[in-house]
């Protein structure tokens, strides 16, 4: 997968441009189509999701915060379900939802709404009509189907909820559990532009993440080291090239499969050229198994598709081989992941088992009728348990999983954490 990243970039630009010309619905549909066919994948998903959500904010009709939250959730869930193997879509949706909540509550304070309005909003919660039922933000997926739960989920991480005055556990929770104003008129207008600004900031963050991660490269890679880079993504490439500008070392590049027959370029030719130009030796390993090479390697580096709450990783398949082998020989495993890939949830069973890809690329169906009966299981994502990872390098610096909770708390609202886009009946 990784080598083809570059190939997607132009189509990404084109796609983003086309969003402006098409209707919102058309844009969403066409993106869903591309996601389902995996023509948009990996890091691009984050960018594209942000673009789409920006369009939702800018162009869909909404008259209050709840409606806006509903629209975002609706669009987000459709995208996420089109690509269940790309949790980053859900992350961006959650980020935007949190952003809206923040802006709305700032508005509320700015507007200096009296307690009268606030209590009115409290009472609004259960009977809030504008968003259609399916758009009600479910704090937990099952909640949408649930009638037996008397209370919603508390909104803050505190043991004092039990004793607090706030009705944390007592009223059904909606997206507006943090009381938000019914933005009207000018207020809608200002909220719209504030949220759009916020989404643009998220886009900037996505765009700058790789460079920020790369700035930690020379701390991690030392002179003379042998680095195993597993299917280097754009993030990893930038990291290695940055390190190469300061140090001499050797990079072993491994990947899950040989280049497709007829590939015009050797795998990672561009990366190798850049590294070689800096005097860094590169070795392409034409091997699936890595146990043979790890003893010679000092560190293993790869990028993650997503980092789960427990510190486990979703990766392009094969990276698990590198991580497992590294553990066997006690070599550090360094994972590069921008913060926006940190998911505020545990991996699902499906994620742990791995996502199945299209087998046709691996088996030539021309080779006879027997092959067609052959059940081909081509896993395209792997799950790496947290115990196999030593360091996570993010755009906010190196992290260990013990600090994830605060990272997640900084980036997601508790209301949105339980909102699982894959299972939600939206």
């Amino acid at each position: 997968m990784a080598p083809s990243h570059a190939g997607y970039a132009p189509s990404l630009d084109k796609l983003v441009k086309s969003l402006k010309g098409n209707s919102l619905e058309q844009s969403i549909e066409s993106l869903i189509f591309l996601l389902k066919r995996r023509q948009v994948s990996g890091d691009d998903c984050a960018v594209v999701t942000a673009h789409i959500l920006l369009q939702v904010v800018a162009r869909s009709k909404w008259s209050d915060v709840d409606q806006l939250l509903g629209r975002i959730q609706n669009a987000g869930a459709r995208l996420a379900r089109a690509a269940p193997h790309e949790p980053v879509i859900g992350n961006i949706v959650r980020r935007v939802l949190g952003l809206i909540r923040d802006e709305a509550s700032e508005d509320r304070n700015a507007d200096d709404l009296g307690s009268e309005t606030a209590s009115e909003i409290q009472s609004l919660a259960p009977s809030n009509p504008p968003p259609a039922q399916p758009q009600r933000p479910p704090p937990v997926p099952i909640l949408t189907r649930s009638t037996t739960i008397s209370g919603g989920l508390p909104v803050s991480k505190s043991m004092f909820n039990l004793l607090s005055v706030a009705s944390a556990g007592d009223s059904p929770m909606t997206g507006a559990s943090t009381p938000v104003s019914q933005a009207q008129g000018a207020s809608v207008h200002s909220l719209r532009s504030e949220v759009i600004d916020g989404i643009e900031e998220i886009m900037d963050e996505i765009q700058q993440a790789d460079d920020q991660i790369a700035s930690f490269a020379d701390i991690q890679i030392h002179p003379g080291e042998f680095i195993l880079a597993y299917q280097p993504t754009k993030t990893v490439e930038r990291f290695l090239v940055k390190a190469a500008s300061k140090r001499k070392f050797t990079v072993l590049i491994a990947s899950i499969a040989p280049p497709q027959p007829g590939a015009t370029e050797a795998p990672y030719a561009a990366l190798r050229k850049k590294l070689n130009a800096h005097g860094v030796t590169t070795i392409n390993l034409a091997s699936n198994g890595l146990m043979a090479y790890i003893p010679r390697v000092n560190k293993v580096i790869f990028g993650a598709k997503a980092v789960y709450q427990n510190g486990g990783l979703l990766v392009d398949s094969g990276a698990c081989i590198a991580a497992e082998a590294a553990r066997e020989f006690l070599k550090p495993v360094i994972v590069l992941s921008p913060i926006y890939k940190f998911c505020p949830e545990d991996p699902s069973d499906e994620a742990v088992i791995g996502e199945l890809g299209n087998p046709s690329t691996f088996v030539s169906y021309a080779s006879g009728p027997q092959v067609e009966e052959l059940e081909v299981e081509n896993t395209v994502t792997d799950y790496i348990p947290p115990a196999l990872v030593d360091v996570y390098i993010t755009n906010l610096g190196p992290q260990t999983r013990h600090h994830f909770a605060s990272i997640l708390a900084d980036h997601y609202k508790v209301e949105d954490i339980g909102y699982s886009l894959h299972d939600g009946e939206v």
Partner: protein
Amino acid sequence: MAAETNAAPTGTPTTATPAAAATPAKPQAPAAAGEEPKLTPAQLKAKAKAEKAARRAQVKDARTAAATVPAPQQAGPDAKGPKGKGKPDGQPGQNKGPRPSMSGPRPIIEKDPRSTIPDLFSHVPMAKRVPLSQAHKDVHPAVLAAGQQMAAFNIKDSIARLEATLLAFAKVIEEYETPKGNSLSRHLIPHVLNPQIEYLTECRPMCFAMGNAIRLLKARINHIDINAPEKEAKEELLEWIGILINERIKLAEFVIARNAAEVIKDGATVVTYGRHRLVEKTVLKAKESGKSFNVTVIDDPFEGGGQELAKTLMEAGIPVLYSPNLGGLRPKVAAASNVFIGGEAIFANGSLNAASGTADVAMAAQRTGVEVIVLCETINFDRERVSVDSLTYNEIDPERSTTESFRLLFDNTQDNYIAGVVTEFESGGGNSPAQAILALLRKQEDPLIA
């Protein structure tokens, strides 16, 4: 694997100690050649005995040394880097003598493919195609053909290579005539067999089975009475080769497949990696006996043999799940009842030398609580060398190692990842831990006498 280029078992210990002088028959130096006839038969016999005693002592030494001092063995491959030095009983300098014509073109052939090999792997040997015109004039046509096929990896499995070697050597022996004034047991090895072995090694580093068989063959030849008539001696040798092929190859394969098939239970899911002859035979055997089970074939996409295996099994009516690569290895292995792996060789420390990627599969299996069963003939067991990593005895894949990529053919799987090894030994159940089999092998025969 480099050291086994040295026709290892005999090679390493003998060259490693001064007692190597006990093998004076080998030197091709004129002086040595002239010395030989002067010895009386009785002297020779005495000498042979002394030699044998010395070698036994060395073997014992090596056994104990092997565990603690891997250094000399590693030195073998390291030193070997530039070219096939340390041939069977290695006198590289003298070897050059007889064929000065080759030293010219040789570096060119060698340098070309090896020049792209990264420095950190430069000690690992690699097969290479030796143009027929450059082969030693003494190399027998049958050996030439076998060597070419090995270099081209048309014959690549250790046992297939062993069989090809033995059959070719049988031809060599058949057509061998002892020169006047020589005896077969004194002349055959240094003047006829060694150039053959050297050539084969040059084509592709020798596998452990070949090393073992050649060691046995040499011991056999040394054992022949110096006064025995040539015809009788040749017949004895040919018969011995026939028995070796029958027992250690044909019968072994049958017994292993039968015993391993018994491990497969109805409803089981068997995982295997790549394609190995013994695993294929085993699975087909289990199917023949009426069991119904699934096989998950995990392939090495750089090799692709698994796809062939999957097809074969499908045709036999076995439901096959085919995984084109190691992606999702953990869950796939976790779902299995057993993992079956074919072995290329097993070292004295019980570690397994097998197709590259095997170690990753075995580790995943062990970590998910699935037993790994290795299928391997005892002729592939090396009782003297130990391997703790994959870079001590290995081979570079000549086909896939280019300027663009690099690949080792094998990797090393520690014995703690292996639940049992199925060999042709029947006593005590075929499937015992490698160490138990090594112990059996040690008891079973003196390593020098077949």
